[in-house]
């Protein structure tokens, strides 16, 4: 009986999955929102680069579809880091200049312990060279948020020891709806 009850209590009270959490490194905005910066070090954080007809597909041995159906679709997958350069999630970036769907650039960020964010970017970069975008949908911690994002490529950044010769930064400014404590 003790074994039966003990196992039941143990199964009920001890979580089967305990995800690793990094602290969220955010700066609070006057409107109650927060700014968070996600970093991608290039090339070390690249998992996939897929583009029909391209010679620089990644990883080596990738059998990217040659189907013309995908046209100029560029698919990239990265690990993403926080401001302290600790990996906190993964992300996909899809970009295309297709006339049928209209040109687009969008990101899906997946942070296992926190949720996912779906970001749509302006196709044309701003005069300062970065791209602006917005949060279209979110899950988990991002579910009720709205806000903007800035995508910027930093090319004058290099660290030979860590195999870094460039960096992508996604700077998000999200805010919860009025009355929401998030």
């Amino acid at each position: 009986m003790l074994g039966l009850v003990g196992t039941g209590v143990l199964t009920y009270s001890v979580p089967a999955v305990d995800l690793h959490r990094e602290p969220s490194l955010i700066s609070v905005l006057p409107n109650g929102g927060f700014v968070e910066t996600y970093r991608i070090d290039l090339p070390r954080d690249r998992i996939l680069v897929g583009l029909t007809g391209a010679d620089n597909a990644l990883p080596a041995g990738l059998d990217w579809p040659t189907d013309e159906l995908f046209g100029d679709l560029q698919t990239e997958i990265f690990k993403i880091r926080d401001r302290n350069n600790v990996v906190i999630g993964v992300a996909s970036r899809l970009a295309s200049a297709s006339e049928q769907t209209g040109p687009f650039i969008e990101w899906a960020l997946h942070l296992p312990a926190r949720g996912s964010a779906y970001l749509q970017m302006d196709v044309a970069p701003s005069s300062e060279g970065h791209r602006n975008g917005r949060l279209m949908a979110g899950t988990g911690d991002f579910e009720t948020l709205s806000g903007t994002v800035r995508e910027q490529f930093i090319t004058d950044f290099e660290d030979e020891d860590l195999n870094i010769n460039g960096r992508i930064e996604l700077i998000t400014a999200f805010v919860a709806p009025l009355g929401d404590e998030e």
Partner: protein
Amino acid sequence: MKYFISMLLGMSIGAALFVAGMYFNPFTDRMLVSPLAVSDDDLLDFTYTAVPGEAILYTDNGESIIETHPDRVAELWEPAIVDTSIAVILLNDSRGQVLGLGVKFSSDSEQTALINSEVLVNSVWHIYVPGQGTLLVDQIENHWSFLREIVVPARWSSGDNWKGAFFRIMTHGPGALGTARVAGGNGNFAGVSGEAVESLAARAYSALDGPVSMNGSLTISVPQATSETE
């Protein structure tokens, strides 16, 4: 001493009884019919191979029985993503014609509750359908049936494999009817929200290598979308 041994024996039997009760629980959720079967909205039906070696790319922490693919793909070994996998998959219609491309992120869920027969996985599909647009599908999957009816029998089998016929709706939420949430991105799907359901059909599984013959199906209900793939 004999009382102590009797107590240990009794506790072991109790624990074994509890695990057996949990494993053979007849009240386990067995959803076989898609909640979207009665939807009036346009339906996009995608099928795909759920065998990681047949995907364009599959990667995880590198320690599971499933081999990452291609060989030199980066593994997700960092602590924050060690319970995450990524698959890049061609999405086909029922005749095998390519319709689109999907990137699927899957992470073990902290909401997993074995006592409720719930082995939950949070997954997100980032999908591109040429000529139509882009979508994000967010879902909670329950892998309990898959573990109980395929993985465990394969491990118990002397040949370390399972063969049979398995079909389950894997989507468990977060929608009220156990459906996934869909957010449209670009093209025809811009600004659209909908629901989705993912199912798995398996015929063979190896306890040493993972899925051998397994297909997935993703049905997306998209109000107002102009679909040519119904």
